[in-house]
């Protein structure tokens, strides 16, 4: 659906990174973790296209949804200046969600979030814990502590959070993917399930580790998008389906894919 939703919270939470909460009960009511909303940033023709943002929080009771974004270009720059009380023209919820209905409460879940890809891991952690999973671990990565999302966004869902930064300014020094092997071995976690969203290099590493270790893994892909509803065919990625490699739309068939079906371009 397309709605004009009032901003009820909008604040800077890290270097050039903002948390935006909208009151939009219809979308909150039907949205699932992994899905995104498509926001018109400003009312002019420049920038022309909407900007897609994965949902970081879905509060069905309060009727609110949140996204966390980094100011990267003109669209997000304009968005960052929108005050509380202003309404935003949004479409959503769009795209596929993380598939969690089949996951047993006895499973452990490891959620790998890198950089500005990490936000949907908060709503996913909340949903998994809501399903009764006892051990949900978020591996939260960032370039540095200035770019690190506040740990509290994830810990308040009940998830355990382990931090890695590239420069070592917070948590483990190194890539967040380096924390993954110790989290899915040792039998402590039971049969683990892995979810990841972040930069392409991180997704490749997580996907290939899980595939070679027989661990189920779902990846959320990022793409520049135009329509967001499948009409324009602009946001395709390559996947293996029914034995052949084909392009599918990140906005409609995705953004969440099984790690085993994603074909990376080298």
């Amino acid at each position, binding site marked *: 659906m397309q709605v004009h939703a009032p901003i009820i919270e909008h604040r800077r939470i890290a270097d050039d990174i903002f948390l935006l909460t909208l009151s939009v009960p219809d979308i909150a009511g039907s949205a699932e973790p992994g899905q995104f909303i498509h926001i018109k940033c400003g009312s002019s023709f420049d920038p*022309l*296209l909407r900007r897609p943002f994965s949902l970081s929080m879905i509060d069905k009771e309060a009727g609110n949804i949140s996204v966390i974004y980094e100011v990267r270009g003109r669209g997000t720059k304009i968005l960052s200046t929108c005050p509380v009380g202003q309404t935003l023209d949004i479409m959503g919820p769009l795209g596929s969600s993380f598939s969690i209905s089949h996951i047993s409460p006895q499973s452990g879940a490891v959620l790998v979030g890198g950089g500005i890809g990490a936000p949907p891991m908060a709503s996913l952690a909340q949903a998994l814990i809501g399903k009764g999973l006892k051990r949900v671990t978020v591996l939260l990565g960032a370039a540095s502590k200035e770019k690190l999302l506040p740990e509290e966004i994830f810990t308040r869902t009940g998830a355990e959070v382990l931090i890695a930064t590239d420069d070592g300014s917070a948590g483990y020094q190194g890539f967040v993917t380096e924390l993954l092997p110790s989290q899915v071995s040792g039998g402590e976690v039971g049969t683990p399930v892995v979810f990841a969203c972040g930069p392409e290099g991180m997704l490749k590493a997580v996907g290939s580790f899980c595939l070679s270790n027989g661990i189920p893994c779902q990846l959320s892909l990022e793409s*520049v998008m135009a329509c*967001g509803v*499948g*009409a*324009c065919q602009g*946001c395709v990625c390559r996947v293996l389906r029914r034995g052949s490699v*084909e392009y599918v739309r990140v906005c409609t068939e995705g953004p969440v894919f099984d790690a085993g079906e994603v074909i990376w371009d080298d």
Partner: protein
Amino acid sequence: MTEVNLAVDVAGITMDNPVTTASGTYGFGLDYSRYYDVNLLGALTLKSITLEKREGNPPPRIIETPAGILNSIGLANPGLDRFLTEVIPSLEAVKIPVLASIAGDTIGDYALLAEKLSQEPKIAGLEVNISCPNVKKGGLEFGVDTVQVKKLVQAVRSSTDLPLIIKLSPNVTDITAIARSAVEGGADALALINTLQGMKIDIQTRKPCMANKVAGLAGPAVKPIGVRMVWQVAQAVNVPIIGMGGICTAEDALEYIMAGATSVAVGTFNFVNPMAPVEIIQGLYDYCIKNGIKDINELVGCSFK
């Protein structure tokens, strides 16, 4: 809506209002069905199909430009067979005229597509895409050459009795010469403009951004060019025109109508405001009421009459 006639006739295709969708921006008609009933439109124009399935171009396929987009989709489509077995049945609830768009590498491809689609009662007319600039041999060779345009249209004409709408490329020196050739070949109507060839260069890699290098510019940025070309073609030929290129609002649609378009198509702006086609229909009605226009057809080409 009783006091104003918004209905138009394009080559025997009766549309309850002048608004349709620009091919390639609306998929196969159902992607926007969560936003409004497609039957509110005057007609539905589908994405171009080819004889065989096409995967389309590697990403990036769309890049934003000032008030526009560069796109290089590469005619991604499921091919004729799946169009007939999957797409057509999915359109059962669509009661408005459906225009299929066809594209090919050879004149024979176009003729065969036209022949096969003629047997399909769901199709009210054929838009012949002779101007897609994205695929090698995907149309540009036909669309920029008067002799080729006439030969192609004649071949398609002899393969079908369906109304033929030829979609023209703006990437030519004199669009009226191409328009005349299409009409001489047997076109019942013309659609214009397709995208303008453009390019963006990545200043970090120092290479073109698109894998296909050249891409098609669309969106509000191209509207003045489209209006000018419709105005020129409307005075050069005597067939109805479906005008398009950057239409976002009823005011934009009215410019095209006054330039000579009987029907108008919303393209890129569907991506920005999915409700745009419906808002434009309402806006056309409101304009007519406010200005005492009884029939929208009175406005067609009024800028030069």
